[in-house]
């Protein structure tokens, strides 16, 4: 089973060094602005900016495009549906094609910019950034530090679980189990001998982890970090500029 969780490409560019909070905020502004956008000028401008960031971050073109693969079909489908008319015979319509193209470019920028975050930020930095951004929610009695810890543990668990499932499937196949035969109900039932040992094993692991966290006196309160995130002047500038641009675009000043 292949799980593309390790999409982070280590590097030391300006994009890599930027604070994860700044990157998350800029992407949020970008996606929200694209939501309201109607003009070609702006979308081409934003697309150019995104590609520039790619170049600065020295992201391999192939790596970048691989991140966009899941939306390839949606893009192609929208383009085709918009460009052809079936009313009164089959023809190509230019305005429809342009509308479809607009949608595809927008999808490209939206998906590309979110992909850029995971490509240039390590999972640890990203979770720390999210934890700090969620801090205001602590006033609403949301256990922010706990949620951040769950995210870290959850991400760490993903490869472990995938490995465990593969192992159990192999073990049961060796005992003569089949998974791809018979009716739907039969196939579903074939998973019982996988699920039970999977969960028993995982519960054991989880209990061991909880005990060792308890033994090390983890409480989640007043937790310190090995690498503290510090906002640099450039990060603040980045957030302010993107926020300003966002207001101007949504307010319709730039069009």
């Amino acid at each position, binding site marked *: *089973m292949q*799980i*593309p*969780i390790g*999409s982070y490409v280590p590097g030391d560019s300006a994009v890599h060094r930027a604070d994860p909070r700044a990157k998350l905020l800029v*992407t949020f502004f970008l*996606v929200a602005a694209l*939501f309201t956008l109607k003009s070609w000028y702006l979308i081409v401008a934003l697309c150019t900016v995104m590609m520039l960031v790619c170049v600065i971050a020295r992201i391999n073109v192939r790596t970048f495009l691989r991140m966009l693969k899941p939306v390839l079909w949606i893009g192609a489908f929208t383009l085709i549906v918009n460009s052809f008319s079936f009313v009164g015979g089959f023809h190509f319509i230019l305005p429809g094609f342009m509308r479809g193209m607009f949608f595809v470019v927008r999808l490209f920028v*939206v*998906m590309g910019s*979110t*992909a850029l975050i*995971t490509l240039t*930020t390590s*999972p640890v930095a*990203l*979770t720390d950034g999210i934890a700090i951004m969620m*801090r205001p929610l*602590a*006033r609403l*009695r*949301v256990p922010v*530090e*706990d*949620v951040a*810890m*769950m*995210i870290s*543990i*959850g991400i*760490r*668990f*993903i490869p*472990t679980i*995938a490995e465990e*499932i593969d192992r159990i499937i192999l073990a049961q196949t060796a005992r003569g189990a089949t*998974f*791809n035969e018979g009716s*739907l109900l039969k*196939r*579903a*039932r074939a*998973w*019982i001998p996988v*699920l*039970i040992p999977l*969960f*028993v094993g995982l*519960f*054991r*692991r*989880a*209990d061991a982890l*909880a005990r060792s*966290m*308890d033994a090390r006196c983890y*409480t*989640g*309160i*007043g937790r310190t970090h090995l690498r503290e995130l510090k906002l640099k002047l450039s990060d603040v500038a980045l957030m302010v500029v993107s926020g300003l641009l966002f207001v101007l675009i949504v307010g319709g000043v730039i069009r």
Partner: protein
Amino acid sequence: MQQTRRFSVRTLVYCALFAALIAVGAFIQIPAPLMDYFTLQFLFVLLAGMVLGPYKGAAAVLVYLIIGLVGFPVFAAGGGISYVLRPTFGYLIGFVVTAFITGWIAQKGDGKNRKYMYYVLAAFAGMIATYVIGISYKYLILNLYTKETTALWSIIAVALPLEIPSDFAFCLLTAAVGPRLRKIFLESENA
């Protein structure tokens, strides 16, 4: 800074575990007759509710959603904040409610004779919740955001026949394993 603590360390680890399971579930693709494949994601969502109970189960699904929205590619087609605008995001929101409802009904059955019936009912109530929220979200996004005017019935007609058979099978499957896993979970809690 104000700090609140409502989770025990053990709860925290188990929520993380189920969030990871739901993430992995999206990538286990099983070839099925009459359609391309189905994934185990829905099954793990139901189990999160049954094993952890309504609140912790919903918390586990929420953690999964945060992991995906931040940008980790754990959703069926990638991840990132932009996923909110995808028509299928409604199913993911629906999963939170599903875990809650499933957990809530299943727990009513704890300690009763006809426990299995409660788990079956819980699974199907969860399935309906996913469909209602998923389909209404799809309808809203298609009509308001992408401006492709689509009738509600056409979305239902396209989506349901493909999804119901496998989800139906999963409901029965979870109802079969749910009570056992719940028991294992509670026993290890007291150990």
